[in-house]
């Protein structure tokens, strides 16, 4: 038997923080690729500390639903899962290369495949592009359009910027969008000045965040002048300084994220059968009108 654990942050204050985790877990559940699928959280239940013992499977694949390598993936999760042999060097990563490491959790008799975070997987690049397609409602979006990938910045974790830059570079190499830029909330180049960095009239802005919350629904839209007050919502697209800004909200809510989770587990040796195709079909046919698409306009920030 094999189990998948999706490890996410969660919140004591905001019930929506765990929605994407549940949604992606359900998508994976429906493929039937794992005997057990479990959500686990730092701030909600089941806590990282207790999740493994709720499983019957001997093989457990733990995929952190986090954007970057850093404090949570390198310290908190392995410690709370009681992976005593863990050492960040086992990932042999310089910030975006973590794949997986196989360890034992000391409180249970199981093999734990501890995977790198979803945010740095190559498949994440596709999710960002998919996000641009769904927010513009254009499967061919790219020509005449600039793409901004937005991250938090270096405040707490230098690898967070690396993840943003990594995907931005990969998107740039594809030559699909006229321009691709990495922007940040807390460091240069700043998302506040988004229009200064683009020549294209149309700019799609995709924040590389796991869940919609304070930053993606309040800070960033106000910083970019999409709206004076996030409570009033904003248009998609919105006119700012002669550009049309297509603001996408947190990329982590995109349905295709479930596929990245599967990729991580598959890279670590999980037998996922054709589950990736199933999810890809579901995500691309659901299109921008799917339930979990962006939430533009008046409802945004509610």
């Amino acid at each position, binding site marked *: 038997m094999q189990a998948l654990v999706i490890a996410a942050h969660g*919140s004591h204050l905001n019930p929506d923080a765990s929605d994407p985790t549940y949604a992606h877990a359900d998508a994976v559940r429906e493929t039937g690729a794992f005997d057990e699928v479990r959500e686990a959280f730092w701030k909600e239940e*089941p806590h990282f500390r207790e999740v493994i*013992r709720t499983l019957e499977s001997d093989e457990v694949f733990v995929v952190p639903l986090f954007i970057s390598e850093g404090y949570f993936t390198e310290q908190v999760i392995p410690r709370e899962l009681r992976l005593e042999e863990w050492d960040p060097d086992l990932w042999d990563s310089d910030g975006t290369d973590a794949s997986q490491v196989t360890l034992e959790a000391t409180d249970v008799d199981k093999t734990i495949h501890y995977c790198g975070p979803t945010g740095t997987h190559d498949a994440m690049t596709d999710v960002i592009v998919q996000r641009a397609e769904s927010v513009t409602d254009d499967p061919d979006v790219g020509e005449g359009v600039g793409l901004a990938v937005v991250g938090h910045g270096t405040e707490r974790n230098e690898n967070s910027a690396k993840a943003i830059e990594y995907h931005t570079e990969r998107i740039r190499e594809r030559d699909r969008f006229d321009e691709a830029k990495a922007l940040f909330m807390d460091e240069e180049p700043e998302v506040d000045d988004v229009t200064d960095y683009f020549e294209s009239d149309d700019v799609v802005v995709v924040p590389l965040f796991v869940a919609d919350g304070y930053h993606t629904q309040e800070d960033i839209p106000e910083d970019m002048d999409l709206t004076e007050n996030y409570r009033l919502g904003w248009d998609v697209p919105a006119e700012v300084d002669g550009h049309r800004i297509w603001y996408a909200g947190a990329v982590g809510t995109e349905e295709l994220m479930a596929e990245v989770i599967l990729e991580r587990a598959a890279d670590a040796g999980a037998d996922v059968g054709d589950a990736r195709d199933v999810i890809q079909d579901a995500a691309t046919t659901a299109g921008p009108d799917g339930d979990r698409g962006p939430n533009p306009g008046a409802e945004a920030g509610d």
Partner: protein
Amino acid sequence: MTVATADVEDLRAAVEADGAIAFDGLHLERGDEGYVLETPDGDWCGLDEAALRDALETIGEYVTNWRYWQETVGGEGTARRAFLRWCERAPIADGELEDAAGSGDHPHVPDDGETLSVPARYELLRDGLDREWGEICVTARLVESDAGEEPAGERVYDLWHVDDADTDLAALEVYDDPRDAREIATYDADDRYRPLKTAPTLVSGWAFTGLSGGELVETIEFFYPATIANWHRELRGELDVDHWLETAERQSGIYDVIDELPREAVDWMAEACCVDSQCLRRREWQYEEGGELDPDGGDGPFPCREPCSLVVAAARKWTVLESEEERTYELELTTSELNQLTELIDAVAEGRTDEIREADVYDGANRYRARYLRAKRFDEDDSLAAREVDE
């Protein structure tokens, strides 16, 4: 009860494979002179195949019980199986019946820890056998077979809020997908977020019906995560408790400081957070091994093996607050006003403010009373006019 041919064949195959079967009072083995069959109510020996079939026919409940647990449930040694056995008051360790009480003739409502024999369980399972898990009532019952004949031993499970035990099913929102439990468990009756799943604020008005054993466990897992796993460990004497100090010392980042929380403050914290009125888990963690905390851990059915993330987060705040020095203040209050402060703190701590009626000015935590006190005693900075006293 009619015993299906397949069940008889499965039983015989199991005897061939293992030499003998001993399960919930049913013993069957193959001796030199034919099959030997035994239950608490009778025994047979020297049976050939046809005689075995006839004999099994008379003890159909033992046969279908064996089939349900061995074939449908499986998972020997798992928490899931133990929980399902607990639900119908079966002895949790398979095969042991010594401590099982009750006879098929006169089923009675058993005491809490009591386990029952197969006929006694079947008698109760026909109407549904209830157990409580926190605020959830679980009913195990036998499924009527399609032909409307005697039950073939398959069980299904229903669950609802204990407050709805007497509510008609038609008045409840009925679900059958375990995942719906997530949504139900997210908000309390006032639509406020419940970050602690074991807070005694689960809303009522819903029911899950006809769940399989696996689905039941999954549903409970969404309502009260990890409670079954830790209960099962405790049952086997394997609960791994992490006491306050271990948990506190393990923290990093912004929680790094919580191991500095004074010892007596940990007592206050446990009294604030971990009592039955606030959390249905029974606190098993102490200050440290051999260093018990004063407050009682509570009576919940499932153990709490280490401080939860909410308590850890609150501890950070208290660590900061407790690092402040105490000072002496002087402020003007009448005796009644001083008493009123006590009533206010108590009402907030007990979550009672909503219940105080607008016109109940006899309660010190009444809103008008509180507003009056504020109007009278607050200064221009909107705080109590208090002077620090130099010692």
